[in-house]
């Protein structure tokens, strides 16, 4: 039962060691890269599921790395909130690696070992960031995830290099702000352990240094999650990244940053300090409204499928930040549920964009013509995700939006509710437009006088499977979202807000 005891550490150790294995075996035979990454991520998914099961059974786990007791050693703390996020990360990255196989062989044929090495390292960073209970350890893992992200995006076509460079500059500013904020906390308290900070900080809430520390950490995390108006690096970086990279970074990196914001707000500072001592909730909810409206309008203006999706990410980040800062039980539950739902939905959408790129070579909206005839199964999966993005019951997207709207009403933030509804309408326009385009045949050929022949040309199974599994998952999560909220998410909402 040693595996059972060590499951929080295995989460990070398995993908980390597999990165070395992929690098070494990839030198001899690049066909070994995929199976190693596949097995490692399958084992990681197992470890994550086991960890969540343990949390559900026996409550939060505190794991001491190397046996050093906190606050001296580094501690991994898994509770209901990050247990759920860990399973989401492991699940999405496992499906992403299945999707990646064919996509990488086509888009990056000479960089296969590098791709898989960076891929598993990015997963390591994300899982570590989520599991850790130490503020400085979080910084290191944040940078591991960020550095591998920069490199993965730079693997893309030529425009990706410039986009990745801008991401490096802004991402580094974000991480440095976080580090500086942690420095302020350390000077004031002498501790880096999150649980320890939570107990020491209340006596210092009135000091300006703690206020500055909180703002620095918050701004750093906002830069990392591309919260409006700090989102400028995201659209280009995610558009020009290779398809397989987009499927991993687009769903996970921003969502994990949102998780970190929640973690810092509730487990380092407290809901009392964040929502009552600081008078920031009003302005930040307005910023979230701006993010949602701006992201939606920009998405409407795009004729590039991937770029449209990246602006939707900017809008969705606004959902989650706004939901948390509503400072109500429903708002926070909705935001946490939306982390899971949005990770799955964004994954599906980028898989769809990846399939389109794989099959047609482009990712403009005009490349989608006649797709319903050509790939009926892919389009069925896409339609489910589109309905979930719009928020049609019983898909998962409806329920998180429902909780967010309930939270907005409870907090009296009607502008946030209006923004959510406007964004749903815009999503409806965007996705029905795509469905309309895919129903139409390509233009008539003027010379011959009849349209080119369309035959069924479905996407390969390994690309289709992740899309369909998650599309089905979205319906299942939608039906069981009440259970998820009462059994998992409620435990993370601070008591005073329920």
């Amino acid at each position, binding site marked *: 039962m040693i595996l059972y005891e060590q499951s929080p550490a295995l989460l990070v150790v398995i993908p980390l060691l597999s990165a070395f294995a992929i690098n070494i075996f990839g030198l001899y035979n690049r066909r070994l890269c995929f199976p190693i990454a596949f097995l490692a991520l399958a084992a990681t998914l197992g470890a994550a599921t086991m960890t969540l099961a343990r949390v559900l059974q026996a409550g939060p786990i505190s794991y001491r790395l190397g046996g050093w007791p906190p606050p001296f050693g580094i501690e991994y703390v898994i509770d209901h909130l990050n247990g759920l996020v860990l399973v989401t990360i492991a699940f999405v990255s496992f499906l992403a690696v299945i999707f990646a196989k064919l996509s990488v062989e086509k888009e990056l044929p000479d960089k296969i070992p590098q791709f898989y090495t960076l891929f598993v390292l990015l997963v390591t960073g994300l899982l570590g960031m989520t599991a850790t209970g130490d503020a400085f350890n979080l*910084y290191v893992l944040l*940078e591991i995830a960020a550095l591998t992200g920069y490199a993965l995006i730079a693997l893309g076509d030529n425009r990706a290099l*410039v986009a990745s*460079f801008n991401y490096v500059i802004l991402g580094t500013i974000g991480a440095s702000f976080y580090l500086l904020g942690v420095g302020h906390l350390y000077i004031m308290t002498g501790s880096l352990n999150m649980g320890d900070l939570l107990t020491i900080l209340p006596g210092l809430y009135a000091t300006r240094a703690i206020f500055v520390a909180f703002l620095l950490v918050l701004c750093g995390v906002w830069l990392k999650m591309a919260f409006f108006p700090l989102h400028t690096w995201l659209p280009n970086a995610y558009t020009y990244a290779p398809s397989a990279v987009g499927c991993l970074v687009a769903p996970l990196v921003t969502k994990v940053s949102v998780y970190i914001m929640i973690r810092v707000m509730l487990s380092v500072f407290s809901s009392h300090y964040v929502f009552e001592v600081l008078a920031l909730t009003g302005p930040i909810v307005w910023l979230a409204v701006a993010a949602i409206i701006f992201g939606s309008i920009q998405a409407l203006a795009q004729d590039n499928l991937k770029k449209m999706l990246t602006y939707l990410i900017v809008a969705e980040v606004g959902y989650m930040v706004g939901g948390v800062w509503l400072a109500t039980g429903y708002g926070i539950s909705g935001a946490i549920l939306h982390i899971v739902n949005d990770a799955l939905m964004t994954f599906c959408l980028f898989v769809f964009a990846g399939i389109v790129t794989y099959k047609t070579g482009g990712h403009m909206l005009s490349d989608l013509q006649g797709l319903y005839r050509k790939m009926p199964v892919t389009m069925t999966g896409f339609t489910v995700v589109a309905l979930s993005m719009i928020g049609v019951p019983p898909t998962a997207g409806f329920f998180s939006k429902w909780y967010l709207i309930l939270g907005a009403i409870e907090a009296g933030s009607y502008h946030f509710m209006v923004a959510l509804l406007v964004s749903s309408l815009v999503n409806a326009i965007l996705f029905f437009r795509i469905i309309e385009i895919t129903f139409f045949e390509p233009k008539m050929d003027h010379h011959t006088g009849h349209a080119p022949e369309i035959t069924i040309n479905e996407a390969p199974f390994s690309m289709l499977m992740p899309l369909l599994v998650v599309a089905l998952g979205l319906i299942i999560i939608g039906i069981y979202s009440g259970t998820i909220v009462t059994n998992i998410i409620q435990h993370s909402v601070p008591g005073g807000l329920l």
Partner: protein
Amino acid sequence: MEYLVSHYNYWVYILLMMVGLYAMLAKNNLIKKVIGMSIFQTAIIVFYVSTGAKREASIPIIAHGHGHDAAHTVIEAAHYANPLPHVLMLTAIVVSVGTLGVALAICLGIYRRYKTLEEDEIQEQLHDSL
């Protein structure tokens, strides 16, 4: 004035940080931006290290710490410098070197593709290719 002098280490770090931030955001040449990024990260390292520094303090190793005498030695924390910020910064230095490496590698790729490292010229080429 006394306040300024007694906290000069913090003023130095703020100055360095602003220099780095300015270079990162305002310079046109990509290598200059990378240098600005490096200065910015170094400023934070200076900040951490200076918080752990203490005048006339010793390294945190207890002299004669072994044997029976150890129990009788009075240990005053004020005599020792806090080693933790310095240790943390070893990790942060590694991270910043890694970031520098990735940034320079990307610059190299950009130069191979566009034959220039001036941001406005790259933007022009990107614009023309659309």
